[in-house]
């Protein structure tokens, strides 16, 4: 009985935590960008502007729930739902601490890869259903970008799988008790980080929604809470990438003195801050540069990493 209660508490707690902290990330990101640009950012609503999220939510909910008359209505409504669902579902396999985590799949890593692949559909559906040239161009870019970067997103993780000998994320964390995988798999960590940023299409890889060229890319026609779901989906995906890096490369909840959950959250927030810093610092590449970078630099590096790790594991 108590295990059922614990399960429900786990599921609800993690769902609420993930969605709420993704919403808070919008505020964190704006404050941090403000700090790095020598200004304040939102600091008016509540102490340090922390209630800005609530104000934004109220604004988005009060907006007219507009579906353009030329849009494919069903697909248009489904797309943001997929965007939100896929990333939250992917978060289910993240082991946050001993006993905290929704589900322990044998194939947790593959589940994560499958779910991030599915998120390409949300962007493509949204773009296609909008019947808008900017959305279509954004959707095409998103599809090509996500498919290209998924290749070495997966390949870069295989070194970790080889070292740990399992696809189970909890066992991967436990395999890092001697040494975090970031040391033998440093290159893979960099590749995964870059691919993760590209998968959550954030700056510098935000070509699907490049404001200057495509107004807002695939979500040009979206407004109100449907836009909000795309938005929150993006931030959950940031959180997901950071958590996944912590689990795979930075020893998950492992660490001295502090309780495991604190270690996990600490490491995750440092990586999230790093992603925000990258957004604040780096410019967006041209589209052909993005593709060339993915296929000509990152993919060969992932292959080399795979082969070298394989040889070292055998020897």
């Amino acid at each position, binding site marked *: 009985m108590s295990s059922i209660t614990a399960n429900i508490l786990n599921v609800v707690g993690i769902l609420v935590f993930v969605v709420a902290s993704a919403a808070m990330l919008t505020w964190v990101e704006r404050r941090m960008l403000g*700090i*790095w*640009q*020598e*200004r*304040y950012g939102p600091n008016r609503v509540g102490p340090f502007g922390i209630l800005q999220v609530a104000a934004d939510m109220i604004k988005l909910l009060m907006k007219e729930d507009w579906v353009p008359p030329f849009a494919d209505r069903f697909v248009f409504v489904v797309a943001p739902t997929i965007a939100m669902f896929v990333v939250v579902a992917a978060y289910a396999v993240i082991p946050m601490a001993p006993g905290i985590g929704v589900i322990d799949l044998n194939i947790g890593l593959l589940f994560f890869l499958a779910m991030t692949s599915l998120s390409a559909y949300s962007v493509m559906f949204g773009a296609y259903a909008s019947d808008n040239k900017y959305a279509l161009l954004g959707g095409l870019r998103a599809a090509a970008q996500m498919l290209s970067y998924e290749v070495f997103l997966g390949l870069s993780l295989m070194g970790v799988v080889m070292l740990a000998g399992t696809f189970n994320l909890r066992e991967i964390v436990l395999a890092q008790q001697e040494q975090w995988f970031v040391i033998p798999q440093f290159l893979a960590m960099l590749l995964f980080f870059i691919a993760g940023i590209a998968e959550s299409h954030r700056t510098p890889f935000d070509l699907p929604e490049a404001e200057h060229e495509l107004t807002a890319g695939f979500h040009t026609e979206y407004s109100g809470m449907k836009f909000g779901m795309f938005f929150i989906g993006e931030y959950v995906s940031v959180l997901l990438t950071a958590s996944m890096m912590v689990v795979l490369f930075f020893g998950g909840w492992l660490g001295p003195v502090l309780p495991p959950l604190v270690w996990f959250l600490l490491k995750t927030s440092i990586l999230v801050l790093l992603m925000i*810093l*990258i957004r*604040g*610092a*780096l410019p967006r590449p041209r589209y052909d540069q993005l593709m060339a970078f993915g296929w000509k*630099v990152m993919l060969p590096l992932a292959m080399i990493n795979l082969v070298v790790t394989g040889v070292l594991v055998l020897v």
Partner: protein
Amino acid sequence: MSQIGRAVYLTWDYTWSTLRTLWDVASHTFAKRDTVEYPDEMPYLAPRHRGRIVLTRDPEGNERCVACNLCAVACPTDCISLQKTEDETGRWYPEYFRINFSRCVYCGLCEEACPTYAIQLTPDFEMAEYNRQNMVYEKEHLLISGPGKYPDYSFYQVSGKAVSGRAKGEGLNEAKPVNVKSLLP
């Protein structure tokens, strides 16, 4: 071989510049912020700031404006309107002087055009109104009690202007009129 060398060089160059950029941006974390949180904290406005327009008086306390209309002519938005009248000595002054601040662009051309330093722009910009008609300022709103930016300047004492009763340069403390044909100072 040179192609590989170039690839290695570019990889290093791009990696290094990316990392340096990240470090440069991160180093702004503890930098002083440029923002002045205006309604809580008043920003410093220079004395030459071009804000609300005033009409000033000369050191004796008389109106400086001589109703020459040069400000109204110079005004690119035609927001200044005035009517000339005379007092019993024949000295010109404006009967009414009206500035429509809902049209004014605070360019300062009226101040530059003014031969008597009567019209001046001041460092005050907090002029918001709920009713557009309240943005039209009449002479009693514009006229201030002091000389503004040029405390010692009095047009009639330095320019040599004939008014009824005395000729050019004959008034009290009045300088002789400038001989514009001469090169001497």
